[in-house]
């Protein structure tokens, strides 16, 4: 600041600090400085917002330079000298000036308001019958993207008569909060077509945000939201929940893949085809057709049966007991409507080595898992979607 520039030793101190900062910056050769501008817009709506942002930014910079300049000038110019005891002119005010610096800001903010309103109407414009509709379910702490055929409501994808017609992408938070070997779930959309998202939350408030779309919308329980966008640049864009939603809020990342219509159709087709062999663990974030898969491994003849219920994002028990070296079944009731759960068994504790993992499916539904024989010992069980749903399983 200007008032620190007066004395030489302070100027030296500031130069020293600036030099230190420069060294710090140059020390990391690829120092990541983001700009004060949003990312390049990937949607037409985002571009409209970006144009508005640039105007607001310019006006902001102008005001900043003007007022900081006036402050700096006053501080540098009007200083009391040592021994100067004479009073400066005692000016009490000036009505003309007051009117000027009331009227000009009013004009500026009114202009900004009108511009903002126009842009708002552009980005909120709705198209009848958009070619792509996607159901978005936000839950603690991940996302589901549901693609239904035109004649099926995405909410009805779980119904028996719609088996095999929908594609559901189920996101899982990074295991143990470790992102190293984790990929966020992907929402695929075709480029150049209007996409409608029908968004729903059953637990707490979440918010759908894609920075490259320059757009976010809260998803409140009992208040489903519908938004539309038209992505005009192919690419993969990061998205995240912006409304703090509890323990693993930070893990609610996802990606939007904007691709050509052909690539999109291809992806949809692959996702609709059930995978040849059941996967032992849902390590991949995408579980195409998860809702029609049978239990993870077939063990005919298993006679030991346990029951386990998930409701209110919690298991009904935190300890289970099974005979060692015998296959068994878990009758797992997911009573949380629209919320995915499963059961996974880990060695020693819920965060230990994965031994077995059952399908993830939405409530309300009950499924029977066939679990292979386990050697005697202590195991932890956990819902992969909700790492805070845990318990101990003892085999003896």
């Amino acid at each position, binding site marked *: 600041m200007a*008032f620190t520039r007066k004395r030489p030793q*302070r100027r030296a101190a500031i130069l020293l600090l600036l030099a230190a900062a420069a060294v710090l910056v140059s020390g990391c050769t690829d*120092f*990541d400085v*983001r700009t004060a*501008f*949003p990312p390049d817009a990937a949607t037409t709506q985002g571009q409209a917002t970006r144009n*508005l942002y640039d105007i*607001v930014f310019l006006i*902001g910079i102008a005001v*900043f330079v003007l007022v900081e300049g*006036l*402050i700096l000038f*006053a*501080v540098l110019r009007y200083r009391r*000298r040592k021994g100067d005891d004479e*009073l*400066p*002119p*005692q*000016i*009490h*005010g*000036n009505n003309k*000036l*007051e009117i000027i*610096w009331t009227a000009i800001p009013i004009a500026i*903010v009114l202009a900004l*308001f009108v511009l*903002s309103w126009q*842009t*708002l109407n552009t*980005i909120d414009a709705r198209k009848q019958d958009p070619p792509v509709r996607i159901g978005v379910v936000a839950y603690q702490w991940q996302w589901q993207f549901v693609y239904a055929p035109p004649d099926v409501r995405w909410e009805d994808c779980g119904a028996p008569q719609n088996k095999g017609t929908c594609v559901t992408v189920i996101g899982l938070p990074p295991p143990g*909060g*470790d*992102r190293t070997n984790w990929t966020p779930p992907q929402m695929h959309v075709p480029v150049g077509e209007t996409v409608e998202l029908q968004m729903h939350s059953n*637990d*707490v*408030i979440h*918010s759908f*945000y894609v*920075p490259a779309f*320059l*757009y*976010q919308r*809260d998803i*409140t329980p*009992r*208040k489903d939201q519908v938004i539309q966008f038209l992505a005009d640049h192919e690419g993969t864009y*990061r998205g*995240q*929940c*912006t409304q*703090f*939603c*509890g323990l*693993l*809020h*930070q893990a609610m990342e996802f990606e939007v893949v904007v691709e050509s219509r052909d690539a999109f159709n291809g992806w949809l087709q692959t996702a609709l085809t059930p995978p040849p062999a059941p996967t032992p663990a849902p390590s991949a974030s995408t579980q195409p057709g998860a809702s029609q898969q049978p239990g993870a491994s077939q063990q005919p003849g298993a006679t030991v049966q346990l029951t386990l219920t998930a409701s209110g*994002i919690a298991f009904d028990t935190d300890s289970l007991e099974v005979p060692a070296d015998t296959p068994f079944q878990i009758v797992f009731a997911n009573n949380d409507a629209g919320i995915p759960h499963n059961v996974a068994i880990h060695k020693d504790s819920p965060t230990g080595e994965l031994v077995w993992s059952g399908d993830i499916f939405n409530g309300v539904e009950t499924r029977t898992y066939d679990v292979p024989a386990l050697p005697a010992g202590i195991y932890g069980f956990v819902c992969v979607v909700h790492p805070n749903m845990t318990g101990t399983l003892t085999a003896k």
Partner: protein
Amino acid sequence: MATTALRPAIAQRSRLYDWLTTTDHKKIGILYFFNSLLLFLVGGTLALAVRTELAQPGLQVMNESTYNQMFTMHASVMIFWVVIPFLAGFGNYLTPLMIGAPDMAFPRINALSFWLLPLSALIAILGFPLGGAAANGWTSYSPLAQEKYASGLGTDLWIIALLLVGTSSILGAINFLVTIFKMRAPGMTLFRMPIFVWTILVTSVLVLMGTPVLTAALMMLYIDRNFGGAFFNTALEGGNAILWQNVFWFYSHPAVYIMILPAMGIVSEVIPTFSRKPLFGYKAFVFATAAIGALGFSVWAHHMFTTGSVYLPFFSLMTFLIAVPTGVKMFNWVATMFKGKLSITTSMAFAIGFLAMFLIGGINGAFLASVPVDYHVHATYWIVAHIHYVLFGGSVMGVFAGIYYWFPKMFGRMLDETLGKIHFIGIFIGMNLTFFPMHLLGTDGMTRRIADYSATAGWNDLNMVATIGGFTIAVAMLPFLWNVFSSLRSGHPAGDNPWEGSTLEWATTSPPPAWNFDRLPPIRSERPVFDQRQAATIAAAAAAAATRAVAAAATTAVAETAQATAGH
């Protein structure tokens, strides 16, 4: 009442007992000061914990659960137990002195409003050892804050603590209003009150209108959590999550003005004194303060633009408009410095720092008034930058300006200026290192309240800079704490009016006697002490002028006589 003629023997009480039972507004003000300072260190420590975790991607020092408690309690402590009480403390100490009153209107209620603060802070912090403090964010949005998702005791303790803080605020506001309206000294008309008292007046009105709404909302949340209510609990028929946001922000947006108006008042006392000029546009300033107070109640839903449940044009327009009275104040402060004779004391440095930093908080706030831009930066680090440029760059800078300015009055000793300047430079650099990079992170899409972020998003370096800035602020606090400690013991004696202040508090001793004033100067303008000081000068000048006139007249007379004589 004949019996009162006999005075009871004054019992010798310990100094501790004296401080615990005092109803003297000055001692209560000092209690506010030290309580807020202590909790500032607590809130700052929580902030450092947050910044330490965010320095690098990955979870290094704490898990998500701890992190969520840290940022929730950081915001709660700083807002409810640091900024608001710090400013209320200044109000407590200064309001009676500035209007020439012997004390607040209700001294015992005044003591009660103070003692509710350490009690409530203790209750909220007690959550940490009792199974985890509140972790829903300071906004405590429902249904996240419902029993189902936040089952711990921490949230209930947080609600109870906030109810007590609210009670303290409401009692304090009534006390301020009655004091200001009923206890002004003869001659102290409303338009002769110092601007600081005006800001306390408007703030008290805001508290009185807003806080009961928050109190009601907190009670409803408590009922939801503990007695199966369905106010905000969407799991039950009739529960409405948006309703909580409406009632919460109906208080919490005006709360931002509760946290900034008195700081503006402080700056409006400091800048004229050290510019040796009256405040430019006193009445414009009063009207701007009232306008901010009035508009402040019509902008709450700008926190909810992204909910899809708000009539956007109205709240957008109101939010834009509230920038106007704030801008008027900014221009008036700058005009006060123009053609003045500025002494850059530490207090003045912090006041100018307030102008420079609060301006940024105002400009980046205008972005949020524009709904489409808000759709992009809402709930990102842009908001974190904005709130900190307003509350740290604004309120905290204002508080420091006030401490350096009135410490001599409160304790009769000066704070050390060299340590003060070091403190200022450290705070100034530290806050910009911490909060400026957050703008860039925010526009790039880094969302707030996340314990971890992707290592490949390109945010690593800016987060590291912000963390370095946070520790710079912490280090810069050390010379300040030492300054307070050592100056209390051995600071240079202050005298009644070390800064040539113009308002009434400078007309009494430092520290003032229990009854505040032995005699008051005549109050004929908003600067009674200035008038008194000038009266002597003016009288001397008038006397000198009169002498000169007499002498001149005599000379002329002699010359005329000489001429007449010569003419003869």
